[in-house]
């Protein structure tokens, strides 16, 4: 058990503080860094959604990018040519597509366990990847450009303009906070306790009378829909969708972010995504062969930190507390 779980309101306070600091980013930083921070927020949402499966339910999905990617494709496909889509309809629609896909795939896969679950989720994601890669449905290999960003107009009033990079950033920040609080609420609810029970001992939960299949499926759908939020934002931010958004590279990378940060906590994946993106930026600056540094860093973390980065924080805190006594 991680030391950071169940810290009551300190977590929410910390989040509020971080969100407040992050709210100032567009006021002081250049466009590049604002967009970079938005990317971190998007990946953090994505990583949190995967951790719901990986860390909380014990379902290791190696195809999570599928739900991220289809939300992006959903936006690209409903955006009419030479016209902008409506944010208020396209956003829920994209998430619904992700959720529906998660329901369909989850219905088949949540019965499976261990490495077989890993591989079947990968298989479904790869099928989807090749569906978009090999056919003309989504522009094939090149993907689709979203030249005109969705418009968020209500009547005559436009609360935000997604052509403005700072507004995209604020949207990402708002959704990040929303998703964090929502997942926190879900995990603290009776539903969340059942999920934790399933991870600890599924047979016992079954004999207590819980239909664990439906709980796991609900979790899978929630995780898929949340990944859809991240995918939609990514499509808006980058203005392009391509099959790579569904590929196993991304599924692998986001899984690495979660494990790196620390599974089974909400802060872990956020930390993992942040550190991952910052390291990428930093290493790219140092050398052309930055993958070498990234790889070495990952290998060392995996060997030296048994519970990810958040575990490092936990063990430091414990040691401090012990010294204090």
């Amino acid at each position: 058990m991680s030391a950071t779980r169940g810290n009551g309101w300190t977590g929410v306070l910390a989040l509020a503080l971080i969100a407040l600091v992050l709210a100032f980013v567009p006021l002081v930083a250049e466009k590049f860094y604002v967009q970079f921070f938005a990317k971190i927020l998007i990946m953090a949402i994505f990583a949190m959604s995967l951790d719901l499966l990986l860390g909380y339910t014990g379902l290791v999905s190696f195809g999570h990018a599928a739900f991220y990617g289809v939300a992006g494709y959903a936006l690209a496909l409903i955006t009419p040519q030479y016209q902008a889509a409506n944010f208020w309809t396209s956003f829920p629609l994209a998430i619904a597509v992700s959720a529906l896909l998660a329901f369909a795939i989850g219905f088949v896969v949540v019965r499976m366990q261990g490495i077989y679950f890993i591989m079947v989720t990968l298989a479904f994601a790869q099928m989807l990847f090749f569906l978009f890669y090999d056919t003309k449905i989504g522009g094939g290999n090149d993907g689709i450009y979203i030249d005109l960003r969705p418009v968020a107009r209500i009547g005559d009033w436009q609360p935000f303009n997604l052509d403005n990079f700072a507004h995209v950033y604020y949207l990402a920040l708002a959704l990040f906070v929303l998703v964090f609080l929502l997942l926190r609420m879900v995990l603290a609810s009776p539903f969340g306790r059942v999920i934790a029970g399933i991870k600890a001992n599924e047979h016992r939960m079954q004999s207590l009378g819980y239909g664990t299949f439906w709980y796991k499926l609900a979790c899978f759908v929630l995780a898929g829909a949340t990944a859809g939020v991240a995918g939609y934002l990514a499509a808006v931010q980058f203005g392009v969708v391509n099959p790579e958004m569904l590929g196993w590279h991304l599924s692998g990378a986001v899984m690495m972010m979660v494990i790196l940060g620390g599974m089974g906590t909400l802060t872990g994946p956020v930390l993992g995504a942040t550190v991952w993106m910052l390291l990428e930026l930093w290493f790219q600056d140092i050398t052309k062969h930055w993958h070498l540094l990234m790889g070495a860093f990952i290998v060392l973390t995996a060997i030296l930190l048994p519970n990810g980065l958040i575990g490092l924080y936990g063990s430091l805190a414990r040691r401090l507390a012990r010294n204090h006594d």
Partner: protein
Amino acid sequence: MDFHIFLIQLLNGVQYGLLLFLVASGLTLVFGIMGIINVAHGSFYMIGAYLAWSLAAQVGSFWLALPVAIALSVLIGLALEWLVVRWLYKRDHLYQVLCTYGLILVFEELRSVLWGDDVRSLPIPAPFNYSIPLTDTLSYPVYRLWISAVCLAVAFGLYFVIQKTRLGMMIRAGATDRDMVQSLGINIQLIYRIVFAAGIALAAFAGMIAAPISAVAPGMGNHVLIICFVVVVIGGLGSVKGALIASLMIGLVDTFGKVVHLELGGVKLLPELSSMTVYVLMAGILLWRPAGLFGKKL
């Protein structure tokens, strides 16, 4: 489909399947015996191909380069077990995945530093660089037949070593109960090191002999890795027999998926969606047998 074309595709499918078996057998052995999920396994396929290409260019002969490249890959395997893998035995599978994912990045980048990012090719080596004519227009390259033969020989060799030798007995015992084997005075650490190096060498060897018939290219390991995981899971984790049967299935399904025409209700399915066939096959088999064909029940 014409008989000769069918024959050619059949041979291609079998050859591709057997080559996959070489890579997948290493993956399944390392998992079955050591309990390690090594996602960097595909990188050694790539390293093998690049070793064959660069050494053949240096010494001027593919056949001289081959033993040197095999020896080098065994050394890499031994070193890697000592440096990295031995810390992972008692760890959760996910951390093994994380760690070996890091290794993929390291190897892919080392390849870029050492050999560059260009796509290379290797001529088909001398005694096998001709084709057997089947009809006036169709022929079959002998080198592919040679690959199939070598792979079969390796498969038989593996079976012999694991089932019939003293080393094999120790390996099998080590897979069942590591602590018991150790308390009987067998150096299990050494056995693991040998198994890991052998697994690496198998993947690298597959890359070496595949180099003359496929492009030696960056990222070639990743594709093979994913397909090999499919093979291993269909066959049942840890089962070498399962890996052999699954490799042949995948080889044939993938090859014929690219040449067969299939339409369902006016929608063209094959060969347009041929890349999906192996994944459909895997999902289907796992729904039918959730632990693969020869896997132990979970």
